[in-house]
């Protein structure tokens, strides 16, 4: 952050929730050579990828779609690669039983109890029919 020029004037501060731009950070201008080297390598990788993309984009012979290998890997991982990486552990078995078996038996019990209660009311004659259907 920049020091105020005088205590009575307005002192510049960055916005509280925004990140400081790289050019305004004084630490940027004191970077070590290793950090500079690493930045240059990353820039080279990015530039290579951008060049690859631009070559595919402007290639007149190539097809209609530029394949994104990251998207292909992501969709493969989300659709076909789940079960090969599954191992039944106590945690997964418990989760499976909780989400698979417990709701079935819970709702079975709820419906059975509700219908038995209604059946008991009907057989005792205490169930008030909501609609009159036979007149």
């Amino acid at each position: 952050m920049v020091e105020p020029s005088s205590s009575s004037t307005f002192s510049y501060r960055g916005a509280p929730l925004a990140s400081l731009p790289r050019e305004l950070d004084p630490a940027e201008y004191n970077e070590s050579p290793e950090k500079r080297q690493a930045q240059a390598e990353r820039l080279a990788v990015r530039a290579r990828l951008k060049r690859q993309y631009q070559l595919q984009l402007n290639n007149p012979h190539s097809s209609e779609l530029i394949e994104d290998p990251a998207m292909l890997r992501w969709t493969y991982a989300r659709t076909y690669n789940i079960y090969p990486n599954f191992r039944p552990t106590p945690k997964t078995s418990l989760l499976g039983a909780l989400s698979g078996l417990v709701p079935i038996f819970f709702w079975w019990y709820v419906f059975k109890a509700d219908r038995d209660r209604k059946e008991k009311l009907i057989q005792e004659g205490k169930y008030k029919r909501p609609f009159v259907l036979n007149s």
Partner: protein
Amino acid sequence: MLKILLPTIMLLPTITLCKPKQLWPTTLINSFGVALLSLQWFNPPQELTMTFSNYYLSIDQISAPLLILSCWLTPLMILASQNHLIMEPISRKQTFIFTIILLQISLMLAFSTTELIMFFIMFEATLIPTLVIITRWGNQMERLNAGTYFLFYTLIGSLPLLIALLSLQNQIGTLSICMMQLNQPTMLSTWTHTTWWFALLIAFMIKMPLYGLHLWLPKAHVEAPIAGSMILAAVLLKLGGYGIIRITLTLNPLSKTLSYPFMVLALWGVIMTGSICLRQTDLKSLIAYSSVSHMGLVIAATLTQTQWAHTGAITLMIAHGLTSSMLFCLANTNYERTHSRTLLLARNMQLLFPLMGLWWLLASLTNMALPPTINLMGELTIITSLFNWSNITILMTGLGTLITATYTLYMLSTTQWGEMPSYIKMIPPTHTREHLLMMLHILPTTLLMMKPELIWGTFY
């Protein structure tokens, strides 16, 4: 009956005898003619429940809508497959259409038969052409796995069905639907009775599919080519529903202990598969799980065995058949252009294909059960009859409707709106054939909105 069955059977040699250049137009016009003739089955019976009958086949108001749907879908399947078969040699194209027509014949016989054993044989017979379509003309390597799952799941369920039907034949002496209505209903509450009902129902539950036994469906739908997906989603699932309705209507009463687990699985499955839809990356997989969700409602309705429930079930089966088939055709238009089923790959398609965006919108609106579509009529009738069965089901069906709307809108907004993908350099424009296909799907849906009595079944 015969004037529709014979042209369909005669289409099989026509495929081999017509000139190669005229293969597609010939089969298309022939199957449209059959579909037009099949509309006569909508004629409601005046005296008896069953019309157009001969010794083995008859039509009544439960089977007529499904029959007309399967006859209507055959030309649509032929229309949809023209593009992905364009590079195949003529003999393979002929084999493909041969398989489709075989499937249609077995479906017509299955829906119109009066003997339950004939229904069982046709029920099994539909598996073979579908298996051929999935494993031979599917696009990915996983189609073999999908075909295996599809075949064996259904076969495991149908063996108990065969045994139960044969034991019934031994007891009563006949398995004709007309004759069995004169039979005294057996009012047993023993375990034998429950097991016998379980054996009768399990095959149809797997076919529908019920939530716990639905694993074959996403695989089969995703790996099948467009014609396979269309016929699977639109008609083959409804074979299961039709079977349940026929058997529960003819062989009253269903054992009460058995309705609970199936009902719970069906209703919980509506919510579960709807939630899975929200997490899908594959477009066809999303539509497949939405099929499971809708069919869960149908299963729950048919198990309550009331008049409204059967009406709602038949209505929703027809409505969902048309809508789901249309969604698969739309997904196929995306697939033919990008060769990928990833949902995120083809975004903002409305900018490129505005008219296709209209079909996407209409298909999504009907999938969401927007009033006044027949989807809504079916779902609302089912929800009402389930509420009558037990008041608590409204929680599950209401939540299910909400989740259905959510994932349908998710699918619509991802494919139609959003950021234009910059990696799509060239997309071929839409064909008139594709617009015709969508229009032929949405036209019956719109017309049935005007006269839904046609698909309301016998209890109207």
